[in-house]
């Protein structure tokens, strides 16, 4: 018994080394999904984020029709990269509203002029408070909202070309 026990610290040590080595090769998962998926949108009302679009409140997203809610910012590089995909989604019939995070109206105007404007309404969330209430952890993110104002899907990161059919399918399913 004692003979075997003497090996215990070494085995523990070897176990820890194995654990750490395996951990080093596991890809780092830094994506934090919102726990509000499947639940109603929190209530909010935001002022207009662009000079030629109205502001956005949670009631605008519960009109009986599914919407995309895009979380973006004029200072965010991947948001510019996803602009063509948002325009394609709009062409395919998606209703897209947006919240501009930590932004200013002239900057949003400039951003939309440069990359195109697929949005019907844009809310300005200067202190990220609605972003926090949504459980969103960064920009860009896109929520699929059903006609009753319930969050049914969250897409984290920029929308790539290959994501467009998936998002259209989620929109159709939310009808």
């Amino acid at each position, binding site marked *: 018994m004692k003979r075997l026990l003497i090996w215990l610290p070494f085995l523990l040590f070897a176990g820890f080394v194995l654990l750490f080595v395996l951990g080093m090769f596991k890809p780092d998962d*830094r994506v*934090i999904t*919102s*726990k*509000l998926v499947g639940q109603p949108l929190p209530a909010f009302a935001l002022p207009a984020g662009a000079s030629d679009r109205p502001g956005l409140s949670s009631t605008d997203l519960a009109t009986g029709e599914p919407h995309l809610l895009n979380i973006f*910012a*004029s*200072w*965010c*590089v991947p948001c510019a990269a996803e602009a063509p995909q948002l325009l394609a989604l709009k062409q395919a019939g998606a209703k897209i509203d947006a919240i501009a995070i*930590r*932004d*200013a109206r002239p*900057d949003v105007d400039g951003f939309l002029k440069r990359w195109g404007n697929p949005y019907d309404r844009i809310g300005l969330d*200067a*202190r*990220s*408070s609605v*972003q*926090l*209430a*949504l*459980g969103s*952890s*960064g920009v860009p993110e896109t929520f699929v909202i059903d006609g009753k104002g319930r969050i049914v899907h969250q897409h984290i990161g920029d929308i790539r070309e290959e994501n467009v059919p998936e998002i259209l399918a989620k929109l159709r399913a939310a009808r």
Partner: protein
Amino acid sequence: MKLIVKFWVAMLANLMISGVCMAQTALPPAPWADRQLPDPKQEQRARDLMLTIRCLTCQSQSIADSNASMAGDLRSEIRQRIAAGEEPEHIRRWLIERYGDWISYEPTAAPILWPLWAAPILLLLGGALLVRGRIRRKRKAP
């Protein structure tokens, strides 16, 4: 050779500049992001909470330590809510509802953490047994 070095220096500079640009937002920090509440007791409560809330951008830091703009916004939100009389634990629950247990550094009593809570007791018991064995052996020895 010189060209290759120049290329890499340019790439590195490029990376550093783009990194800085991506982290920048046009707005100044939120009003209470880096300013203490006038009431020291409230500030203490806000600070204790902020030290145990994890930053969403710099994921190994608390929001009290992070310079990320989102952490600043959350600090400001927490200070405003505490100044309005909200309980820190209520704010923590509000955040956990949105981001999951991930957002809080405070360990909970969830079943998955029972071994963690039991470990010190088990180690102390093991130590006591070892000591008892030693003392008994010493008494027998002389």
